């Protein structure tokens, strides 16, 4: 017998399992319409590959996986695609999501199944691909894609592979019935998983309230080396973390993965699905769902096609809507209420619970917390729910995090135990959402700040560049003017003006091009770098099967797109540049201007202070002269008042300057 460990806390709600195990698993049949949500699991939704009006056959892929943490969807039966549209799905907030709707034709015609090979001859990658392709996602709980969970990071040894057959939620018997009726498939699936993971041991964990199931499993497992471990019934022993503690005595580090303590977990239903995918080549298109509660006349388990409307399934079990005021998808501890029975059964729908109001009464209004600590005694995560409640009421997010709110698995044991019937879990969910929202806002703000800062920097840089250019131009112009004066004859002023203008244009163009090109080059380099790190991270994440894979994948895609765009732009710019280059006149002109400027500067440097002063004076006098003549001209031609005014003031200013220059000259000489 295996040594099993206890975990802290836990509660013993009424099991209510006997109602739904009296008859064998029934076939729910083919509903007239199947609604397949594109996202039934954690991770990216899948991408439809069929169009409205297409005929599909059973098992045919109708939506393919997008990204690593995503699984394809298959047609659960043959028929015609009726629509691809938003439909209501079962979700805590009761919202709708994109779904593929199939009008079934009742023929249930299979698409050709792929050839299968004995699993022993398949390597890890091939097996994972088969599992992924069959659309298998965790069939209890959050519905994490199985292939991701099974991709263990290289170099990590797995001591224990755990198949979770605990089914600790009251009322649900889907796994129990699987064990009783299909234990061979479970064991075969477990063998495939064993082959895939190559762990030290493979254990199927079952609560001791399912003796028939345990016996059936033990019989099927004979000689396979797979161990069946049973342990005392206590909610929530089926929580992954709790089950790991029960079977290994180890705790998964906060924020870590089971593989950190050498464990991989799979759901019992997933093991069967894996068997069917690998051995029979069948994708996951149906599951076992318990339909129970006092508002159904024949509580039992059904084999249901994914996408079957809840209302259809309920009716098969003799549902009496008049007796029912609360329809729960899942169990009474963690299930989600459904307000519209048209929502479809999905891969994670292990139970439909239709209780009467007497059976599961609405909790009385919450009373004051008397700090009795019963919640803390019940909490499997060893939290202090009453403190969390206190902080949640006060919206003290920091304290909530300090008290490890995020280690709460929302099992509901605390609310169950609370004598004041305080809806504790509701507070925690809201607080978690608030904190995540706040974090996101903070990140956004940080992002915006960074963006602002880089922009600011860029603007400053541009400003500085402009300033420098302006200074250079000014100097060049001055020098040119000077050299013209010095040379005495100088160039033809018109020619010079044209050359100047050209030079300016060239400088601007060249400068502009250059900075743009530089920018693009920088972008390309940065994007490449980012892509590299992101890809690396993605690889790592893929290997450890982290839930980040998806986010990373989309990040990588985006970066790649950016990089492409930048590269293209860069290439285009280069071409444009090349096209401009042949008619190199402007460039030459600019070159000449620069040379001239340099020459002028040299000449200037050669002048003595007196000569310099003299040159200045001359220059000023010349300008004065010119301005005066202009002024006279415009006065004569009765030019615009404004122009005359401006010219007058310039003349005055120049006169002052000439005076100052004369004085300076007299001082130097």
């Amino acid at each position, binding site marked *: 017998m295996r040594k099993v460990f206890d*975990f*802290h806390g836990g*509660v013993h*709600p009424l099991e209510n399992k006997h109602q739904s195990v009296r008859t064998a698993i029934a076939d729910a049949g083919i509903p007239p319409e199947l609604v397949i949500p594109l996202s039934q699991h954690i991770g990216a939704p899948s991408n439809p590959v069929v169009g409205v009006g297409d005929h599909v056959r059973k098992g045919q892929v109708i939506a393919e996986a997008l990204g690593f943490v995503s699984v394809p969807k298959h047609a659960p039966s043959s028929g015609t695609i009726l629509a691809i549209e938003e439909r209501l799905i079962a979700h*805590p907030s009761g919202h709708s999501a994109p779904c593929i709707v199939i009008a079934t034709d009742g023929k249930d015609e299979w698409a050709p199944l792929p050839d299968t090979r004995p699993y022993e001859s398949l390597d890890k990658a091939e097996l994972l691909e088969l599992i992924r392709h069959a659309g298998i996602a965790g069939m209890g709980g959050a519905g994490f894609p199985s292939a991701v969970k099974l991709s263990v990071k290289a170099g990590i040894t797995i001591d224990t592979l755990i198949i979770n057959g605990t089914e600790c939620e*009251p009322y649900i018997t889907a796994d129990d019935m699987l064990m009783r009726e299909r234990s061979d498939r479970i064991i075969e699936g477990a063998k495939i998983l064993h082959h895939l993971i190559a762990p030290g041991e493979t254990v199927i964990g079952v609560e001791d309230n399912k003796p028939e199931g345990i016996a059936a499993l033990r019989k099927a497992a004979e000689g396979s080396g797979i161990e069946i471990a049973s342990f005392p019934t206590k909610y929530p022993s089926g929580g992954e*973390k709790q089950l790991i*503690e029960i079977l290994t005595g180890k*705790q998964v*580090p*906060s*924020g*870590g993965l089971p593989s950190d303590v050498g464990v991989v977990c799979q759901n019992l239903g997933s093991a069967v699905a894996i068997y069917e995918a690998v051995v029979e080549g069948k994708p996951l298109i149906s599951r076992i769902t318990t339909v129970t509660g006092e508002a159904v006349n024949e509580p039992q388990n059904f084999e249901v096609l994914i996408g079957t409307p809840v209302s259809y399934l309920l009716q098969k079990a003799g549902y009496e*809507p008049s*007796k029912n*005021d*609360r*329809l*729960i998808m*899942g169990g*009474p*501890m963690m*299930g989600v*209420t*459904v*307000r*519209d029975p048209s929502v479809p059964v999905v891969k994670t729908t292990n139970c439909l619970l239709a*209780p009467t109001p007497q059976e*599961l*009464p609405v*909790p*009385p209004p919450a*009373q*004051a*917390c*008397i*700090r009795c*600590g019963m919640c*803390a005694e019940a909490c*499997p*995560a*060893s*939290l*202090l729910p*009453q*403190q969390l409640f206190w902080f949640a009421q006060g919206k003290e997010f920091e304290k909530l995090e*300090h*008290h*490890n709110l995020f*280690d709460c698995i*929302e099992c*509901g044991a605390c609310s*169950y*135990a*609370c*004598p*004041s*019937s305080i809806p504790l*879990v*509701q507070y925690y969910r809201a607080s978690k959402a608030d904190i995540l929202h706040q974090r996101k806002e903070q990140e956004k703000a940080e992002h915006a700040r960074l963006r602002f800062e880089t922009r600011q920097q860029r603007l400053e840089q541009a400003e500085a560049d402009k300033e420098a250019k302006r200074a250079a131009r000014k100097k060049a112009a001055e020098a040119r003017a000077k050299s013209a004066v010095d040379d005495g004859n100088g160039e033809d002023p018109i020619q010079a003006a044209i050359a100047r203008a050209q030079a300016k244009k060239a400088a601007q163009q060249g400068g502009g091009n250059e900075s743009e090109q530089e920018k693009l080059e920088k972008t390309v380099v940065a994007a490449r770098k980012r892509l590299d790190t992101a890809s690396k991270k993605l690889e790592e994440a893929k290997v450890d099967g982290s839930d980040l894979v998806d986010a990373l994948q989309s990040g990588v895609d985006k970066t790649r797109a950016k990089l492409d765009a930048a590269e293209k732009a860069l290439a285009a710019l280069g071409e444009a540049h090349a096209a401009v280059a042949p008619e190199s006149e402007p460039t030459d002109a600019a070159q000449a201007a620069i040379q001239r400027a340099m020459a002028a500067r040299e000449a200037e440097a050669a002048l003595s202070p007196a000569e310099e002063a003299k040159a200045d004076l001359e220059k000023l006098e010349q300008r004065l002269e010119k301005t005066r003549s202009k002024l006279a001209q415009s006065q004569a031609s009765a030019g615009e008042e404004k122009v005359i005014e401006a010219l007058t003031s310039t003349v005055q200013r120049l006169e002052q300057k000439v005076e100052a220059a004369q004085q300076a000259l007299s001082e130097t000489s």
Partner: protein
Amino acid sequence: MALMRLSSPHAHGPASTQRVMLKVLVATVPGILILTWFFGYGTLVNILFGSVIALAFEALALKLRGRPIGFYLSDLSALVTAFLLCIALPPYSPWWLIATGMASAILLAKHFYGGLGYNPFNPAMVGYVILLISFPVQMTSWAAPRGLAATPGFLESVQACFLPATFDGITMATPLDVLKQNSSLLIEDLWSQNPLFGRWGGLGWEWVNIAFLAGGLWLIQQRVFTWHAPIAMLATLTLLSALFYDGGSSASGGSPLFHLLSGATMFGAFFIITDPVSSAVSLRGRLIYGALIGALIYIIRVRGNYPDAVAFAVLIMNFAAPFIDYYTQPRTYGHSKRGEQ
């Protein structure tokens, strides 16, 4: 029926605050019966009158605070406070003493702080200590036990409550007083010479304590509270009294058994320090909380000025409870150290 939206969990356990409070009330019954047997109807009358007053004050406070009166009265917490305070009061207390005590407990200690769940101090003990300080004479005169004096009848007891001036009861020092004042006799001689002492503790008191112990054990079995605080308190008291027993000399602080079965030991251990609102919450915290109360009780009993010490010890530790909680956070699943990642 229209389907409603509710958040999980949808199942709820059988525990309810009323039920918890009701169990506490039921568990006090053996102790009350024994008290009545040995000391007469005084305590019973205290409780009857005190309950009425407490409910009235509670209703008044709820009305003033604009809360639904029926809903909050039905949590029975006011009745529990009334029972506990009235058990602690000397039998045959006059009505004004009881009323003052209830006002202090319900209005001051409970509703001024925001009502049930928000009171940092045990309301019954706040009421008790305020009375003890304000009316030391009335609060320290305890009725003589059956066997040493005749116990008054029921009508006489009612008279004692409402017409205190006309009542002339026989009061005596309690065994704890006698032991504290003793400086000349060996414990053995004290026991044989003073009729106030019974087989193990005070005459009558030993049975009162045993009755409250029984009630307390039943509450633990009913999972109303955990064993941690009471057992830690009793263990500490036993340890200290054994340590300073001094072989039963005249300077002895009294034997462990005497301490366990005298005064309000068991009543305090199972009915006062287990008040969830004002005590430490985590299990380790409760161990510390209980142990420190045990130590304080011993010190105050042997060294302090007041004969019994439960009320003071509890109020002092009420102060400390939040700090104890802060430092005894349990280690969360998947974290290596308490309170850390």
